[in-house]
């Protein structure tokens, strides 16, 4: 069983790595963020299989942390889009975002 799990883990790991190659090439940064998604699912699966094969009891804990935190790059990226978008749409977009930011600040400073 360990041998099978090990081979399966290696297969999934290689699939994840090949997927990374394709994703990091992709046009646009949002596309590259799919790497986080890929590692969050594929990486977790590979880790669980490899951990099960080599009898590593802490592999599930690491898989939990990996699953939780792999999304954070996407979270930060998407949150940052509220500010970053004006770079591509200079002028109109910038003023729109600026008014949003200024509208936020009185409420924020008052709190």
């Amino acid at each position: 069983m360990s041998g099978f799990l090990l081979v399966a883990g290696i297969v999934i790991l290689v699939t994840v790595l090949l997927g990374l190659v394709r994703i990091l090439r992709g046009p646009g940064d949002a596309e590259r963020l799919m790497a986080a998604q890929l590692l969050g699912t594929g990486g977790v699966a590979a880790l669980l299989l490899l951990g099960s094969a080599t009898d590593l009891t802490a592999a599930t804990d690491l898989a939990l942390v990996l699953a939780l935190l792999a999304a954070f790059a996407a979270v930060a990226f998407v949150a940052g889009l509220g500010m970053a978008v004006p770079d591509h749409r200079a002028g109109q977009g910038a003023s729109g975002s600026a008014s949003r930011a200024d509208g936020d600040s009185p409420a924020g400073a008052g709190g």
Partner: protein
Amino acid sequence: MDLADGFTAIFVSLGAFFFFAGWVGLVRFPDSLSRLHALSKADNLGLGLVIIGLMPQASWPFGVLKLVALWLLGVLIGGATAQMLAGAIHLDDGREPPGGNGDFARRTSEAGRNNEPGAAH
């Protein structure tokens, strides 16, 4: 023991197959949204099958419960992340995300700010 091993072998193989299918989709699909679709659906399904396959090998009860919790977490995070990434891809292509993304978010943020969610986390 043989039944458990056979169960594991079948489901883990299915899971690996779906990961491979997800990779094929990643490489062959023409645009970002389709690739995201391939990634989210196929890979999440693959993860679920792998976890189901690993359950007979895990200790009962807590090992199995941890695996189930991990799967639920993966599904939740995968779904939300896919939505966020799809919105980002729409913005990258110069479109507004569909579904009135901005209006809903603005309304919930207004409500949240008026209720003063609290000083510390």
